[in-house]
């Protein structure tokens, strides 16, 4: 069973640490080395964690859990106006990134009001491409209860935030996080961000449990490595995080119309990527979305 971790430390003698991760059969997911500082996210078998921790201690580094590593989370706001952005939404996105997640902020075109709030088809598809969605709503119970109805039929786990206390079996709800006009600074407010991260973690755990019943042939981080090795233009991509890991696939931030065939023909073990996944065009800027098929659906 692979688990995700984050190394935070210096770059001195780092090569030995990286080699150890590879020796135990682990995968480096991101590697950011700036002068003397290094931040590496990786996945290793849980039984080998003790050796990796020892090695990190020797080079004055620290190993942290990264429960959301390899996930892509949508942070959804009713509009892009100053009434809803930036403020606490940026805090939420930043906090989730510190837990290892990749976040996308989505502002709805017509998400305002109570009766008039709408979610169009393209927005729905964009949100559903993510592993979970954090939806930030307002201050009044009556409004949230009405507005939440447009989100509940989304096909992803939902974490909804708002000011009043609400209970619903359909989504995870975090209270005390309504419309505020400033960035979080008080002790209580910072703790709320932890609650949101815990809510997202809970939702992702459910998704991972569902996947583990019938897992894909290869995990997403192997697919990511192979795409980097075999599709040369990925290294020239200008998008932030050209290859983004998702719980059950990868998002390649290259145009679908030009690179879909190249990605489909990437060889992984004895398969081509198109044989073990569905490759489709993303609703977000026509990029490539790779969804790995469960093992039972792959033709041997």
């Amino acid at each position, binding site marked *: 069973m692979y688990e995700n971790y984050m190394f935070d430390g210096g770059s001195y003698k780092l090569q030995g640490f990286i080699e150890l991760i590879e020796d135990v059969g682990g995968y480096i997911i991101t590697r950011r080395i700036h002068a003397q500082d290094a931040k590496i996210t990786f996945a290793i078998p849980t039984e080998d964690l003790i050796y990796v921790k020892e090695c990190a201690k020797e080079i004055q580094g620290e190993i942290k859990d990264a429960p959301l590593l390899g996930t892509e989370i949508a942070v959804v706001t009713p509009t892009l106006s100053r*009434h*809803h952005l930036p403020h606490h939404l940026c805090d939420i996105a930043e906090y989730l990134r510190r837990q290892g997640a990749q976040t996308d902020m989505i502002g709805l075109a017509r998400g305002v*009001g109570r009766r008039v709030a709408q979610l169009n088809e393209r927005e729905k598809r964009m949100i559903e491409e993510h592993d979970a969605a954090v939806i930030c709503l307002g201050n*009044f119970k*009556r409004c949230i209860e009405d507005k939440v109805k447009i989100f509940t039929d989304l096909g992803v786990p939902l974490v909804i935030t708002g000011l009043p206390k609400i209970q619903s079996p359909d989504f995870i709800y975090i209270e005390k996080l309504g419309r505020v*006009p400033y960035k979080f600074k*008080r*002790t*209580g407010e910072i703790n709320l961000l932890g609650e949101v991260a815990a809510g997202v973690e809970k939702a992702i755990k459910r998704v991972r449990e569902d996947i583990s019943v019938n897992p894909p042939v290869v995990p997403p981080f192997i697919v990511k490595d192979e795409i980097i090795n075999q599709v040369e233009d990925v290294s020239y991509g200008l998008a932030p995080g050209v290859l983004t890991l998702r719980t059950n696939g990868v998002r390649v931030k290259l145009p679908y119309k030009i690179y879909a065939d190249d990605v489909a023909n990437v060889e992984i073990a004895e398969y081509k990527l198109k044989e073990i996944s569905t490759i489709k065009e993303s609703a977000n800027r026509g990029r490539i979305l790779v969804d790995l098929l469960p093992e039972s659906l792959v033709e041997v």
Partner: protein
Amino acid sequence: MNIYVESPEELGSLSIKMLIKDAASDLNLTRLVNEVRVHMTLDPFLFYMSVTKNPAPPSVDIDDFLTITDEDDDVLKMEITDEMYAPYLLQLLWDRFGEDNVNQIRRNILEIKAKKDEVMSLPVYELKEREVDGIVFDLIHRITPVGLRIIHKMPGDMAYLASEDTITEESIKMIEDAISRPPRELTITEEEFMPRTSKEKK
């Protein structure tokens, strides 16, 4: 500045009060406004907001933002020293002397076919008030929920009723009745809702 917010949900009212406080402080409005009153109903969804300005705003004189740099027989060359007033001033000069006679050489340099006394006696006392009005409108825009796009002007200096549905005569009457009563104070405070520091901290 007194802020009164009334709505069926106490916590929601407190959050609107916090929003107003923060926005007013951002806009440096606290000394220019005496009272802000908000009344909300959720069924129908109505948002009433009124702002009572301080009756004595700081005055402004034309010398504060305009300097005559050169004076010919019939042409004045002048510089706008505070560009914040430039849009108001240009409009005023166009109205008074005609657009053909006002030559804007650079962003803040003007040439006008007029006499010095005529220019310096232009009525600018209301510019400061217009400026304050602009800031107050900004406050109203920041606070009013963005989905409520149907606006009705209510009696009073700066009082508006906003809704996402058609505003009926009944709605207006309901709000007029509500605001004719003295405002209620909130029973919960900001500190009770979200303490500034943790209680465990020593």
